[in-house]
């Protein structure tokens, strides 16, 4: 085989993906940018962006980022120890355990969130239980807590899977070497396991943070009545006047830039310690 000359097949094998990329990634992105820079009559200008600089919209942005941040942190706190215990389980049990936590992911997202709201209702299962044991009715649904719970519940598998994958690939000899050199269990986790699983943590954070920050269904189903996240704002804007996408596109684009900045900052942190295995 001659390595320098590529065959016809090698040259054009990637072209379907290029077409895909143009139609479904680059073109839509260009449209978003185009719409964000024009008004409904097609005149160019930054009006859509300047319109965002009002207290209400900025507040929605900040709340969205804050909620996404909190739910990502909670996912991490739950998923990291969980991944650790799964890797500690016997090999043949590991897949089953993992499956238990992955299974909800196979169910429809809307259905899951709807079921959650059913559980949290004033007359729902949890409150019935509370009443039965004498705690009394607790306001659960239509609260910020319910929104966070919805995000954590829906996105936890996306945190668990990458962390588990990276952690299970860590050489067992390294753990033994660390114990051999005098580290107890806790020190081994903090000095060896944690630094080596950073790539998994970073992918997990990315995969939970991004959908959390742009979700809209969860906040509508579980949040307070006037509660709004960026996703809701965009949805309202696009739906309100049929065929007019300009302001919604601008919000969308700003959100994209914000997410990009968040991920870039995070990758900077992880780059310093470990190479490879990082999303984006």
């Amino acid at each position, binding site marked *: 085989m001659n390595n320098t000359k590529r065959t016809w097949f090698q040259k054009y094998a990637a072209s379907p993906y290029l077409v895909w990329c143009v139609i479904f990634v680059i073109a839509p992105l260009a449209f978003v940018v185009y719409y964000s820079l024009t008004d409904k009559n097609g005149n160019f200008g930054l009006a859509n962006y300047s319109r965002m600089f009002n207290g209400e919209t900025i507040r929605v942005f900040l709340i969205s980022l804050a909620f996404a941040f909190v739910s990502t942190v909670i996912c991490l706190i739950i998923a990291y120890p969980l991944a650790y215990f799964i890797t500690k389980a016997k090999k043949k049990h590991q897949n089953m355990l993992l499956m238990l936590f992955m299974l909800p992911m196979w169910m429809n997202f809307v259905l899951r969130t709807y079921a959650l709201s059913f559980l949290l209702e004033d007359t729902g299962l949890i409150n019935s239980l509370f009443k039965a044991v004498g705690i009394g009715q607790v306001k659960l649904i239509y609260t910020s807590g319910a929104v966070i719970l919805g995000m954590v519940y829906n996105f936890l598998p996306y945190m668990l899977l990458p962390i588990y994958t990276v952690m299970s690939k860590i050489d067992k*000899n*390294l753990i*033994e070497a660390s114990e051999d*050199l005098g580290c107890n269990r806790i020190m081994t986790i903090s000095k060896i396991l944690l630094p*080596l699983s950073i790539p998994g943590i970073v992918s997990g954070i990315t995969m939970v943070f991004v959908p959390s920050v742009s979700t809209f269904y969860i906040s509508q189903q579980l949040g307070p009545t006037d509660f709004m996240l960026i996703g809701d704002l965009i949805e309202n804007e696009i739906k309100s006047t049929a065929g007019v996408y300009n302001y919604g596109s601008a919000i969308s684009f700003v959100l994209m830039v914000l997410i990009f900045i968040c991920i870039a900052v995070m990758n900077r942190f992880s780059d310093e310690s470990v190479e490879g295995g990082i999303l984006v």
Partner: protein
Amino acid sequence: MENTLLRLENISVRFDGEPILNNIDLDIKDKEFVTLLGPSGCGKTTTLRIIGGFVTPDSGSVYFNGKLMNDVPAYRRPVNTIFQKYALFPHLNVYENIAFGLRIKKRSEKEIRDIVNEMLSLVNLKGFNKRSVSSLSGGQQQRVAIARALAVSPKLLLLDEPLGALDLKLRKDMQVELKNIQQRMGITFIYVTHDQEEALSMSDTVVVMDNGNIQQIGTPLDIYNEPKNAFVADFIGESNILDGIMREDYCVSFAGHTFKCLDKGFGINEPVDVVVRPEDLDVVPKEQGMLVGEVTSVTFKGVHFEIIVDIRGFKWMIQTTDYYPVGSTIGLILTPDDIHIMKKSEYSGKFGDYSSYSDELDELSENTEAEE
């Protein structure tokens, strides 16, 4: 025994019902270089892991300086391990890898710097402090692993086939270096290998293992010259192992002859295994030979020729510096010193006949001819 550093008493281990170690007893003296030698699956690595604290034996006791260690976790044992695949921490550079154990022991920064630098020069890696471990060659990684284990000044160092992944030349160099380090630092080494040459050239004591049992413990010379059974004789070096009958003290019959020998203490007419090392046989013209046979194959090995001779149906291996062509008839003589007698064991009849060996060579030479 005086100066016993480590004692294994009646250790048994099973994995999934399979016996891995059966009632192992072993005493290791201070400052000794002990090698656990055996084929893969013989239990040598498990023995090492029991000492390191990574495997808990089903029964038996581990004593260190007379103190029972069974329930002491790995991180509290005064023992360090050099792992087969080095197990260097990939997120730390060379300096931090070596400093790792010292930092756990909360030594001062200055002390750590001094010790790490001393270790780096000990393993000939001066100036490698800041290098990432993944940028090092296999041999260099091995040296870092040695430095990391020695930095915490263990009383006992466990080495699990530490040179297995290195090429032959590097392995030889590292053997010499390891032996030097062991003598200079006065540390007890327990070294696991399946390479008999490595075991013989480095050790004070060799422990030959097979099937979860210790077959023989002795100095390299003892193990080579006085193997206890057919397994040891075959595993350590090349051996011709024949069925023989011990006529009386100092007199044994095999291969259709009766020979004088130096062994005694067997029963009259007791069946025995007779070991003759290929390098001990002297080739003479057939008229003068005690044994006469036809050469069936010759292989050039560099220092010597390896000749397979068919004597009354038994294929003998002989190492000689003279060339004898295939098909020629030669004589062999044996002096009493060349004959070693062993009691019959479960291994009798399984080893020491080179008929399959020569067939293999025949096939090989046929293939090369066909290619030409």
